[in-house]
C-alpha cells in the first residue's frame, strides 16, 4: 500500500502553528515536505516552551517539534539574492505545492508571488494564509495567533458572565483552521491531477475561524440578539456543568440532555425524591433553579474521584467526563487505546511525545518521523534535490547563503 501522498513535493515556507500544523498532514502521510527556515531568524516557535530537559535551544522546543514531524529542514538566508534564487528554483522546478503564512507582502518581496511562480510552474498549487486576509484596511497589521481568538469571538464566549472573559489557552484558532486549509489544498491537488491546472488559495485565518463561531453572529444579524458567554450553562441542558470532586483541583463534567437522564442522576446520587420536586421537574424549572441544582449535584460529586463520578454516571446512561489535566491525558485509557501520543527519537531532544493525526484509517498507516534540526537537510536538499555541485554548495555555505 502506497502512502497517500507518496511522490508529492511540498515546499513549506509556513511558520508558527497554523501553517506547519497544516503541512504536517502531508509529511505524516508520505509527502516530501521541505520546511524552509532561516537560522538568522528562526521560527518563533523554535524558541517556544517547553524545551527538552528545560534547556533552551533552537532544536529543543517540544512545541515546534509537534508540528513539524517528518519534514526536511532547509535553512536559507532570504536576504541574500542567491538564497532567493534557490527558493525560486525549488518553487518552479521542484514543488507541487507551495505553502506560506507570512504577513502579506513578504513572499512577494522575495520574488515568490504566485504569478511569478505560475509562469514557470503552471500546475503548482500555492497556499497563503494570513491573519486577516489580503486586501482590506488591516491586511498588513502585525499580530499572532492568540489575538485572533479575541477577534473571532472565542475569547468573549469563554468564561463567566460576571467576570472578564478568559481566552481558550494559547493560539486556539491556529488549531482549528488547519483542517480547512488542508482539505482545500488536497481538493486543489485533486483538480490539478485531473485537469493539469493549478491554483492559488488564499485564506484569512479570522474568516476561517468564524466557521467555529458563526451562529451567534448570524443570530445577531437575524434577530439583533447579542449572545454572551455563560460559564458552563447550556440553553438546552440542566444539570450541565463541571462539578468539584474529591481531591485537589479535581472536577467532572455532567450533562443531562433529557428528563430521563436527570431522573437517573437523581437516583444515582441517592436522592430519588428529587424526581418529583417541582423545582426540577422540567428543563425550564431546572434552568430556573440551576444554582440550587448544581449545589445538590456537587454535594455528591465532592465525595468521589472524577473517574468514579464518570463511571457511575455513564453506567446509568448519564453523560459525564472527568476533567483531564496534561498529565492525566497521558494516562487516559481512551488516548492510550488510540495511541494518541506517539513517541519519536529526536537527534537532540531524545524521545519526545507528539500528538498523532487523530485519525485511525483501515488501509493507511501514517509515516511518523521526528522533526528536523534547523537546517538538518540543507545539504541533501541543495545537492540531491536541486542538483547543485558540492563545490558550489560549499562556496555558498561559506558566504552565508544557508545561514
Amino acid at each position: 500500500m502506497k502512502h497517500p501522498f507518496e511522490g508529492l513535493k511540498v515546499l513549506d515556507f509556513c511558520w508558527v502553528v497554523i501553517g506547519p500544523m497544516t503541512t504536517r498532514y502531508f509529511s505524516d502521510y508520505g509527502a516530501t515536505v521541505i520546511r524552509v527556515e532561516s537560522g538568522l531568524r528562526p521560527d518563533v516557535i523554535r524558541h517556544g516552551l517547553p524545551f527538552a530537559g528545560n534547556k533552551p535551544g533552537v532544536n529543543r522546543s517540544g512545541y515546534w517539534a509537534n508540528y513539524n514531524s517528518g519534514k526536511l529542514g532547509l535553512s536559507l538566508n532570504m536576504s541574500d539574492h542567491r538564497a532567493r534564487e534557490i527558493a525560486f528554483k525549488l518553487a518552479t522546478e521542484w514543488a507541487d505545492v507551495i505553502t506560506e503564512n507570512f504577513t502579506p507582502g513578504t513572499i512577494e518581496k522575495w520574488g515568490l508571488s504566485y504569478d511569478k511562480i505560475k509562469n514557470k510552474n503552471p500546475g503548482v498549487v500555492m497556499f497563503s494564509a494570513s491573519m486577516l486576509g489580503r486586501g482590506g484596511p488591516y491586511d498588513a497589521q502585525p499580530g499572532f495567533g492568540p489575538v485572533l481568538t479575541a477577534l473571532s469571538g472565542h475569547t468573549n464566549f469563554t468564561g463567566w458572565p460576571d467576570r472578564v472573559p478568559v481566552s481558550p489557552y494559547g493560539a486556539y484558532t491556529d488549531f482549528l483552521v488547519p483542517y480547512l486549509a488542508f482539505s482545500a489544498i488536497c481538493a486543489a491537488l485533486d483538480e490539478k491531477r485531473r485537469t493539469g491546472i493549478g491554483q492559488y488559495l488564499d485564506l484569512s485565518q479570522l474568516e476561517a475561524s468564524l466557521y467555529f463561531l458563526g451562529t451567534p453572529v448570524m443570530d445577531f444579524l437575524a434577530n439583533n440578539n447579542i449572545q454572551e458567554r455563560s460559564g458552563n450553562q447550556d440553553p438546552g441542558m440542566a444539570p450541565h456543568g463541571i462539578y468539584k470532586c474529591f481531591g485537589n483541583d479535581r472536577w467532572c463534567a455532567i450533562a443531562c440532555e433529557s428528563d430521563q437522564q436527570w431522573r437517573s442522576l437523581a437516583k444515582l446520587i441517592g436522592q430519588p425524591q428529587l424526581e418529583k420536586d417541582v423545582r426540577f421537574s422540567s428543563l425550564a424549572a431546572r434552568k430556573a433553579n440551576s444554582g440550587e441544582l448544581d449545589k445538590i449535584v456537587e454535594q455528591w460529586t465532592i465525595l468521589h474521584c472524577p473517574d468514579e463520578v464518570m463511571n457511575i454516571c455513564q453506567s446509568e446512561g448519564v453523560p459525564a467526563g472527568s476533567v483531564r489535566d496534561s498529565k492525566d491525558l497521558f494516562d487516559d485509557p481512551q488516548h492510550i487505546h488510540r495511541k494518541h501520543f506517539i513517541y519519536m527519537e529526536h537527534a537532540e531532544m531524545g524521545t519526545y511525545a507528539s500528538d498523532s493525526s487523530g485519525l485511525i484509517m483501515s488501509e493507511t498507516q501514517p509515516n511518523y518521523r521526528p522533526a528536523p534540526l534547523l537546517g538538518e537537510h540543507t545539504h541533501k536538499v541543495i545537492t540531491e534535490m536541486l542538483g547543485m555541485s558540492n563545490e558550489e554548495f560549499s562556496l555558498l555555505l561559506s558566504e552565508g547563503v544557508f545561514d
Partner: protein
Amino acid sequence: MLKPYRVIDLADDRGIFCGKILADLGAEVIKIEPTTGDPARRLGPFINNDPGIENSLYWQLYSANKKSFALDIHSPMGKEILLKLIPSCDILIESFAPGTLGKLGLGWDTLKSINSQLIQVSITPFGQTGPYKNHLATDIIGSALSGFAHLTGDSDRAPVRVSIPQFWLLGGATGATGAMIALQSRVRNKVGQLVDVSCLESLTRTLSHAPQFWDMNEVILKRSGPFRPVGEKNALRVNFECQDGYVNYIQPGGATGGRAMAALSTWMEEEGEGHPLLSSTDFGEYGFGQIPTDLLNIMNSTLELFFKTRSKIYLSEEAIKRRVLLFPVNNPSDIYTYPQLLARGFFREVTMQNSQKIFTLGPWIQSSDYAIPVKTAPSLGEHSDQILEELGLSRSEIQSLIDNRIAK
C-alpha cells in the same frame, strides 16, 4: 475542485461540518435526513426566533451547498434505496454511535462489498473502539476529557468550556481531513477505506504545548483567567476591561515586543498616563514571558488603568494607527462591524425560498480559479425527487414512498 465526487452525508448535527467542507469545495453532497428533518434543524438560534424546520441558523450555516434527500433509512424500503446509491458514492459520512449502521444492515463490510472504492468517514465522540466507545458525550464532556477545560477559566472557579460548542465542529473538520487523505490514498492504491475520527482527539490537539509541558518538563499548566502563565511564577495579563467591554493585549517577546511596548508607552505618556519604568526599559531584551516579575506587575497594572477609562473602539483604532498589538475582544455585533470583515464583504445576504433574507458567512477560503458558492441550506427534501428519479423510480413509485412516509 471536488466536482466529480459524490458524498452521502448521514451525519447529524454532530458530524455536520464534515460534509459542509466537502460541499464548499465542490463535491455533490447528498444529505440524507429523516423525513421529520435532521436534528440540526432543531438547534437554535432560529431566524426571527421562530423554531421552524427551515429556520435553524446552525442548519443554515453548516448545510448550505448540500442537497437534501429526506429518506427513512430505518425502513426496509429506505435502506434499499440507500444501498442503491452506494455504487455511485465516493464518500459516506456518518456520526451514529459505533455499531449502529451494522445493526441496520449497513455495516462497513456490507458497504465495501458493494463498492470497494468507497470511503467511509465515521465521526464519534471517542472513536469506534476503546473503553469509551459507548460513553455518552455532549460538548462539555468533550471539553473536560480532552484537557481543554482544565486549562481554561478562572483559577478560583471551575474549569470552563467555550459557550458555543466546539467539540462536534472539530470532529467534523477532522473528518474532512481524513476524507481527503483517504481520497489521495485511493488515487494511488485503487481502494477505499474506513476513516475513524474521534472528536476527543481533535479537541486534545488544540491544547497548544500543554501536553508537551508534561512530557518534557513534568509541568502541569493551569488555568489562570484573563492572565497567561509564563514561566514558573509570572503571569501576563492578556484580557483587560475597557470602558465598554474588553480588549486583548499580549506583550510579545524579543524585538517585536520592544517596538510594541515603546509605541504603547509613548501613547500612554502622550495621554498623561505613562509609567517612567515602562518608557525607560527596552522590552526588546526580554523573550516572550521573560519579563522580570516586578516589571511585569507594573506593566499589568499600568495597562489596566489606561485601558479601563477608554472605549473599545478608540483603543482599537488608535492601536492600528500606532501599530500597537491591541485588539478588541469582539462580541457578535463587533464581529459584524469589524472594519476588515466589512471591507472584505465577509457577511453576505442570501434569500431563502420564502423570500426572507438572512445574513450568512462568506467563503472560508478564496481561490484564483474557484469560488465557494454562498447560499442558503436546502429545504427538507428539496432534492428527493431528483435523486429518486436518477435511481430510476417512476412518478408513482416516488409518490408511494412519500405517502408511506419513507421519503419526503
